[in-house]
């Protein structure tokens, strides 16, 4: 019950702050632009594509690329995954650092809530917002589902990949917010960690390092497999590991703060 009370309060605070609405409006407008461009490309090449046996269809050329530009190359306009690297740190920065600078953190402690429930409640609220955002982004390619042939399995795997990416980035954001004294520092740390995780394999390749460890560490490597429609336990486990470690660190930091005062 107390986790739900925290989630409810956090969700309310998220929805009454202009930042969440501005981010939602800007990113969805940008995604709509991407959708129109992808759809235009798909329609323009439709005759050629029809001649190719087993050629890419609507899911490969519009549905999945809406979620990320990892497979299609060319970054602008961003897909959901690329936008998430920026907006998740902005959404999560105030989660705990904002409470700290606002002086409201002791209220949570005084309510007799263990640190784990505070962290979990706040994390769930962020996830609800992000799931709604992802659903609105997915609604664009799905709006044409009745007129095209969709590869539902591939799209579901890609959506799962995005959901896990959002969950991992949100957990990293909450952990950054737990350690940072100010929201802006939390956002910077979360953004940096997100970019490092996303690009560590590419950076290592460019530096001439070919170790599998960099590929394993990289978020984009695990996301790419799911975007290709392959759901592997190893990739899901990687995302879950990041989420659990980040939330455990946030909980540990908050509990220590209550003891330290």
């Amino acid at each position, binding site marked *: *019950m*107390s986790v739900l*009370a*925290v989630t*409810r*309060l956090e969700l*309310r*605070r998220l929805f*009454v*702050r202009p930042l969440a609405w501005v981010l939602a409006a800007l990113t969805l407008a940008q995604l709509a632009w991407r959708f129109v461009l992808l759809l235009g490309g798909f329609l323009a090449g439709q005759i050629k594509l029809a001649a190719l046996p087993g050629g890419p269809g609507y899911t490969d050329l519009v549905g999945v690329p809406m979620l990320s530009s990892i497979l299609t190359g060319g970054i602008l306009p961003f897909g959901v995954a690329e936008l998430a690297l920026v907006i998740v740190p902005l959404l999560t920065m105030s989660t705990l650092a904002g409470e700290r600078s*606002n*002086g*409201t953190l*002791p*209220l*949570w*402690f*005084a*309510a*007799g*809530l*263990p640190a784990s429930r505070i962290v979990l409640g706040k994390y769930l609220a962020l996830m609800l917002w992000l799931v709604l955002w992802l659903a609105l982004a997915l609604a664009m390619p799905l709006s044409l589902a009745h007129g095209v042939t969709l590869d539902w399995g591939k799209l579901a795997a890609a959506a799962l990949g995005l959901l896990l990416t959002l969950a991992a980035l949100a957990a990293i954001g909450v952990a950054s917010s737990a350690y940072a004294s100010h929201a802006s520092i939390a956002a910077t740390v979360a953004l940096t960690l997100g970019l490092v995780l996303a690009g560590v394999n590419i950076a290592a390749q460019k530096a001439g390092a070919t170790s599998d460890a960099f590929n394993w560490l990289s978020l984009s490597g695990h996301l790419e497999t799911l975007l290709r429609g392959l759901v592997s336990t190893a990739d899901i486990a990687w995302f879950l590991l990041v989420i659990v470690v980040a939330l455990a660190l946030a909980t540990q930091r908050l509990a220590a703060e*209550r*003891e330290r*005062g």
Partner: protein
Amino acid sequence: MSAPTVVLQLDNLTRHRAGRPAVADLSLRLDAGQVLGLLGVNGAGKSTTLAMIAGALIPDSGRIQLNGQDFIEHPELARRGIGWLPERAPLWPELTVSEHLDAHGRLRGLAGKALTQARQNIVERLELGALARRLAGVLSQGQRQRLGLACALLHQPALLVLDEPANALDPVQVSALRSVIREQAAQGTAIILSTHLLAEVTAACDRVAILHEGRLRYDAPIGDGGHKALEQTFFDIAMRGDGSNDRMQAA
């Protein structure tokens, strides 16, 4: 006559800050319906003591019992049993007064009709009706304090912890606050109230405790000597650290 119910019992409470004891070996007992004034100069350890009692800070050693149960081991007891108004009422600026009351109620375990009823009662009692839809971020200092008090009282706690509640209140608001404290005590709530104002203690409290350098130097009922005697004891302790219960009782 039955013995008074002990609501709060502190045993050898100690808490260090920056390597020195902010509160040392503090033992206190507070009965139902009693109002204890906690006095002390800045840095005497009042806010640290109250934060520990409210459950916001964990003591280094010692025991805090609420209605006979150790709430360091069972922090969930604080949830329903304690109401806390910290020195500067901490509020979420983006939420309205009404949303604050709902949020505090839910965090303290109220829900449904009980929450609605509790909110209506406290809004009426502290005259917050006209402010209900106003954002906390635009409230005046006095209004913020009133909302903080409403949040602390909403769930009808057995123990009310007030840290400098009269800060930034005008004389009319201070008088209203005293009335609320008296009413609450009459209903059986134990109240611990920290303040710099001696007049506040003599007007609102049954008992006074004086902290100096983290230690309890004085603990007695407000006697016939009233304000003058209390002032003398307070200054003796604050200036020379030599006040004693004997001196006050003699006065």
